[in-house]
């Protein structure tokens, strides 16, 4: 649905050039929630602004439904922008207008007559769960409520795409989850394509179908959320994934269990998708003459299914341990034997 080809943005100042976005090519499918994650300064903000041309690209093309945005004349672009809803980190509501009038603003811009506006605004206020607060001013709302107004405003002209610029970064964790739930329900209910940028891997994990990892203006990795989380390729991605998985940081706790003996191994399992539902450990302990001591484990849900890791110590005869490991591998769960390091 959205086709981005060799998109580049170069900022030139007198003293230096900054390649904010460097040769990005991506395809975003209709109805998916696509996440872009990166540290600050990675170029994500510029990237999302290039999509509706709030920033002019230096080169490259963006096509939405086969229409080329990049070559569009200003007046046509303004019309086209109504097909993109956008929400912001700091909400960007007009403080001088009530909630009702804030949501009505994009409709005014689109030239919707007044009586039709009312119906749409009330419907949207209902959708985002703010009924009864129409006459309040933004200053009277909490951060989460402000973002709900932002979302309602972004949906006013029935957009095809919703662009989220760090939409939850200014919110507390609980409110973040509420807003993310709202985005998922909108995505399902309206079939809306959502592109979001964030520096929080948690957000990606919770709602995205696919993810691109950005670093220094480039996309260093892209793929299904589950794939990227389980098998991160680049260094940046690994760091992001580790952030989410507290076990990765607690590996030292396991070190004392790892030794060079033949009759004891420490094993790390990666479960993906359906295999998280399998009682694998209990199967092994029944089938093989081994003792299993579970050290630690975790499981995380994503939109594409769950993934988890489990660390355990296995004691028994060398060849029996070997067979047990083979059995696990055959079941489709990834096995990693942690070796003792002198």
């Amino acid at each position, binding site marked *: 649905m959205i086709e981005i080809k060799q998109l580049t943005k170069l900022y030139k100042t007198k003293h230096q050039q900054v390649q904010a976005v460097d040769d990005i090519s991506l395809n975003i499918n209709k109805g998916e929630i696509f996440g872009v994650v990166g540290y600050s300064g990675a170029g994500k903000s510029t990237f999302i602004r290039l999509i509706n041309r709030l920033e002019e690209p230096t080169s490259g093309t963006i096509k939405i439904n086969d229409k080329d945005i990049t070559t569009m004349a200003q007046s046509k672009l303004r019309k086209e922008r109504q097909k993109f809803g*956008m929400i912001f980190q700091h909400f*960007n509501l007009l403080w001088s207008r009530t909630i009702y009038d804030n949501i009505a*603003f*994009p409709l005014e*811009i689109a030239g919707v007559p007044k009586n039709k506006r009312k119906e749409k605004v009330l419907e949207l206020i209902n959708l985002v769960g703010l009924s009864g607060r129409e006459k309040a001013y933004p200053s009277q709302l909490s951060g989460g409520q402000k973002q709900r107004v932002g979302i309602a405003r972004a949906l006013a002209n029935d957009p095809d795409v919703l662009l989220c610029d760090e939409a939850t970064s200014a919110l507390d964790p609980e409110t973040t989850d509420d807003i993310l739930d709202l985005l998922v329900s909108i995505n399902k209910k309206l079939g809306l394509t959502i592109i979001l940028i964030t520096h929080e891997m948690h957000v990606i994990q919770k709602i995205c179908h696919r993810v691109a990892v950005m670093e220094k203006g480039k996309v260093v990795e892209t793929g299904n959320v589950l794939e990227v989380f389980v098998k991160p390729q680049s260094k940046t991605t690994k760091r992001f994934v580790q952030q989410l998985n507290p076990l990765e940081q607690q590996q030292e706790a396991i070190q004392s269990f790892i030794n060079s003996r033949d009759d004891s191994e420490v094993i790390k399992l990666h479960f993906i998708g359906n295999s998280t539902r399998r009682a694998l450990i209990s199967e092994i302990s029944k089938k093989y003459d081994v003792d299993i001591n579970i050290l630690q484990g975790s499981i995380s849900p994503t939109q594409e299914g769950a993934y988890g890791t489990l660390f355990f110590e296995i004691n028994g005869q060398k060849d029996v341990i070997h067979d047990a490991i083979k059995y696990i591998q055959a079941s489709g769960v990834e096995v990693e034997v942690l070796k003792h390091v002198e």
Partner: protein
Amino acid sequence: MLNDLFPNVKMDDMWEATRETFYMISISVIGTIIFGVLLGLLLFLTAQGNLWQNRWINGFVATIVNVFRAIPFIILILLLFPFTDFLIGTIRGWEAALPALIIGAAPFYARLVEIALKEVDKGVIEAAKAMGATGRTIIFKVLLPESMPALISGITVTAIALIGYIAIAGLIGAGGLGDLAYMQGFQRRDFDVVFACTIFIVVIVFIFQFIGDILSKTIDKR
């Protein structure tokens, strides 16, 4: 009692002068708002990184604003005599003070307008652009409403400066309370008249400040 304190004050003259002062304030404030907002918008919009970014227009407007702000008001009146004569047909009376008052105050207000507009959240302008707003929509539905409290407190300050200018204009026959204080008070050494005019002017200033504060407060929903 009042007659003892102010033996030379004629209330008829006082009211007449107050009325003239009010006329001058009202019309010059309206003129200042129109030209000040126009110039202020132009200064803001043509600045680097804004909607109509244009270095030449920005430099040109900024120069005009700075020049007129630099000229002392009393000299500006003198300089504008031919222009006033052409525009109003006379250089005497309160009507003749208007061009100088507006030309003197508008550049001052323009700078205040520019500052007010700069305070408008860039994110809100960006949000409006993302909705497909035209430049006109951004000006009238975002920039001006969002900076309204600052625009109002700015015009309050300017109106009070204008009251000062009007008193100065009185020295060269523009009418109003300044004229009365100078001609009937100072020239005849009737200082009670000067004092009465001062009280009237101070009261007028208080009234304007009060109205400005209230307006600015009620409109501010931040």
